[in-house]
């Protein structure tokens, strides 16, 4: 007879000295863990609750401007730097970490409408309604050299005056070329006092411009004739144009999928398009209750932030039809510009109340150094939460967002209106000859034509 019984020597299973770590033994047998699903569900539920408890997205406000903040620009070489321009012509460089103004760039006579930095970060370009483009060389000098007193940092290295007021500017990442928009689209070289190229398609004001992050010669503009226009600098005329029912205030390319872009529309929605296929939007991002003023992508390309006239900042997934987060404070007024920082952890919003506000991009994320064990735990909780997110209790907690009463009510009214419209359409269809009224998906409903 062969006999053996379990025999554990305690010494093998416990630590030798009190300074040692406790020994850990794993047995992954599912039979040892009964009611796994219930336990996981409970953990997911607790994680969802904790996430709401710890959701404190607002970090701080940065005040200093004496008029509404109209535009912002980030610097790809300095994560903690942010430029902002205001309606009174003031431009400031902010240190986000210290939440302080580092220096100011005076000169503009009217509102600053556009700010952009060159790819190497050595040049800041500003333009405004005073019909000037100003180039500021080495704008980060003050940030590096902190012993100088805060004040007006420098004179612009160049001031180019042109025929019309400007509404926006963007710098190309490849060459020393930038584009300004206003009554027309102008392409400038750093060293030339006049545009090297000019595009015009229609007589209306162009509102915003963005260069494609993949193809350096392609740029996208939105204008007040409700159009989105694609330009190619290698061609003498604009490439394509899409006309919508309402105008887009701002556009932004997806940095990771550079054929896709998102437009912030006046009709409270954001529309994501594939630039190769403009006849329908890929996704319609709904949720705002007033015009969307600005949009900016996370450097990961997985989500973007929008700022709106309804005094909220919202974060959307790149393919999500409703917002993931809604940020608001009591004092924040209409938001004119929003930016993700280059590390994707923070958002900065500039609003009518002259403040810049700093937010976390994940509302309940723990900032600072996180131990590997803490990080693993967080990853596990995120995973179980994602796994059980479809269950009513968890979904209810996860979806719940507190909104200020006016916004909540406005949203309710909007929903009622949309519902009424769809009901009416349904009835019309029911009472007309079969096939005479075609159903149009929402992705196409707000588009009018595509012009080549």
């Amino acid at each position, binding site marked *: 007879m062969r*006999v053996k019984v379990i025999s554990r020597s*305690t010494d093998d299973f416990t630590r030798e000295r009190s300074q040692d770590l406790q020994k850990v033994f794993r047995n992954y047998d599912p039979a040892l863990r009964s009611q796994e699903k219930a336990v996981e569900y409970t953990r997911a539920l607790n994680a969802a609750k904790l996430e709401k408890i710890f959701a404190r997205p607002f970090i701080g406000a940065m005040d200093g401007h004496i008029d509404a903040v109209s535009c912002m620009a980030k610097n790809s070489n300095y994560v903690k730097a942010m430029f902002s321009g205001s309606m009174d012509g003031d431009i400031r460089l902010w240190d986000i970490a210290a939440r302080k103004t580092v220096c100011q760039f005076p000169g503009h006579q009217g509102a600053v409408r556009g700010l952009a930095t060159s790819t190497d970060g050595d040049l800041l370009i500003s333009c405004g309604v005073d019909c000037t483009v100003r180039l500021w060389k080495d704008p980060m000098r003050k940030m590096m050299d902190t012993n100088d007193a805060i004040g007006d940092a420098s004179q612009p290295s160049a001031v180019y005056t042109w025929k019309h007021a400007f509404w926006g500017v963007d710098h190309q990442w490849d060459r020393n070329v930038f584009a300004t928009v206003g009554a027309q689209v102008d392409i400038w070289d750093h060293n030339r006092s006049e545009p090297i190229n000019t595009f015009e398609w229609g007589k209306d004001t162009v509102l915003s411009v963005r260069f494609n992050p993949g193809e350096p010669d392609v740029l996208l503009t939105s204008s007040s004739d409700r159009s989105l226009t694609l330009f190619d600098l290698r061609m003498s005329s604009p490439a394509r144009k899409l006309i919508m029912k309402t105008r887009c205030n701002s556009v932004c390319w997806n940095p990771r999928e550079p054929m896709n872009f998102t437009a912030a529309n006046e009709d409270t929605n954001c529309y994501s398009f594939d630039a190769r296929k403009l006849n329908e939007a890929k996704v319609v991002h709904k949720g705002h209750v007033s015009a969307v003023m600005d949009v900016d992508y996370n450097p990961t390309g997985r989500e973007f932030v929008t700022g709106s006239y309804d005094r909220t900042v919202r974060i959307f997934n790149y393919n999500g039809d409703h917002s993931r987060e809604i940020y608001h404070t009591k004092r924040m007024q209409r938001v004119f510009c929003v930016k993700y920082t280059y590390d994707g952890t923070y958002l900065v919003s500039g609003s009518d109340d002259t403040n810049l506000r700093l937010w976390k991009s994940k509302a309940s994320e723990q900032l600072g150094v996180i131990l590997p064990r803490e990080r693993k735990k967080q990853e596990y909780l995120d995973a179980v939460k994602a796994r059980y997110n479809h269950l009513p209790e968890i979904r209810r907690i996860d979806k719940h967002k507190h909104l200020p009463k006016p916004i909540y009510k406005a949203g309710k009214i909007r929903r009622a209106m949309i519902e009424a419209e769809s009901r009416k359409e349904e009835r019309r269809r029911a009472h007309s000859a079969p096939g005479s009224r075609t159903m149009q998906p929402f992705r196409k409903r707000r588009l009018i034509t595509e012009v080549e």
Partner: protein
Amino acid sequence: MGIATEEDPKEMKNHQNSVDEMEMKVVRFSRGKAANLSALRDKKLKGQLTGKEKLIGISAKAAAQAEKWFLPIEGGYLEPEGLEKTYRYTQEQIRGDVDISSKRKPFDMILPELGPYTLEYTSNGRYMIVGGRKGHIGMMDMLSMNLIKEFQVRETVRDVAFLHNEQLFAVAQKKYPYIYNHHGTEIHCLKEHGKALKLQFLDKHFLLASINSFGQLHYQDMSTGEMIANHRTGLGHTDVMRVNPYNAVIGLGHADGKVTMWKPTSVKPLVTMLCHNGHVTAVAFERGGHLMATAGLDKKIKIWDLRKYEVVHTHAARAESLDFSQKGLLAASDGSLVEIYRDAGGHDYKVYLKHRMVKGYQVGKVLFRPYEDICSIGHSTGFSSILVPGSGEANFDTFVENPVETAKQRREREVHALLNKLQPETVMLNPNMIGNVRQPKKKENKTKKEVEEEIEDAVEAAKSTKVKNKTKGRSKPSKRAKKKEEEVLRAKRPLLDQYNEIGGHPDKKQRVGDKAELPKALQRFAKNKQS
């Protein structure tokens, strides 16, 4: 060298076996079959689910490999050679063949005054509490074999149960259950439970369940003190109660041969099974949750498959108490005899070991010690423990249950257990239902006949209602008749709508050939001749 050697066929076979074994393990760790994704039309969802399935596959494989290579110790076994029979192998012989530290584990504690004894282990198998019928309570650390606390409650003790760890335990005494801490200090008296006969603790839910002498089943939350449920079983006095470790459902054995299963959130039993002709004397559940063993006064031990509620094995033997070990051995006691059964394949439970106590000892409780090859026996003159090779799980998981845990680890585990405390609603027959989508029930369309019957019933009911006697000529026979007619019509109306929807005409007699054109051969049977 670069020269391929010819492979040994024996080695090939071994390799094949190990591959098969690995596959079996992977199946076990992947917890069920993969979803069939080929039928999915949503590309996005399909992509997401494919990724998830892949991840599950990888983790199952990693777990299987970890189990194969990293487990520190091997389980126990008792293997006969030649014509030897395991059940002839006595405890003395086993004790002679095992290592020194295991030799010390079996013992006989003779305490003739205060018995019979019942006993209970903590879930990690380290601590044991014994309760003598006449009020003797003792708690022992089985690792060091030290007595931690011993005291007298000076009244009848019917059952003992540990709460979530060894710091607290409950004792069912003469009138009420009490809770004591490990110093023997009385913490609570649970008067609401009444005269409890049996106690069970649901450790994931922090619920203490008790069955009292009136057949009432109580559930009390031990973390908040709230009384969760009080079910009247209505099946009389019983002291046969066991919790199914798989789903935390409580099984009760009754005097009329029934076994009922209960959860805190339903006042009716989830399952009622007629298991024996006569008293059910013991119930035990297997760790996997699919097997239940019952013993009755009809001199039968039955093994049930709880997925089909069918007997899979019957053994002719009496048993006062039953217990399944972690590895699926079944211990049964009858008088002074303790028998251990083992599944010989296909749920054929054969006697594996036999152990006879001194004649005259009445064994009241058999209980396997978790994570050890030991079976403890509580009997009329004390308690003993015997070696049962291959009964316990050899390898523990530090984060699940740790037999060698320190005070700090215990505290940590207590906090985690409280954070992950399950709600009473999560007790259900199939615990894997959580997070699943219930199949939509088919909307049943009533047949014509059913509706007709319903109409008849409604009319009948309306006719048989008594009309109140009224004055001033309102109770004239004509009025009454009219009222009754109205009543009948009112009862009929909603059903008539249903009937018309199906397409029946209850008032008219069915006329064949009224509308549908009959085949020529059948036309002569129609009432109105068709032209």
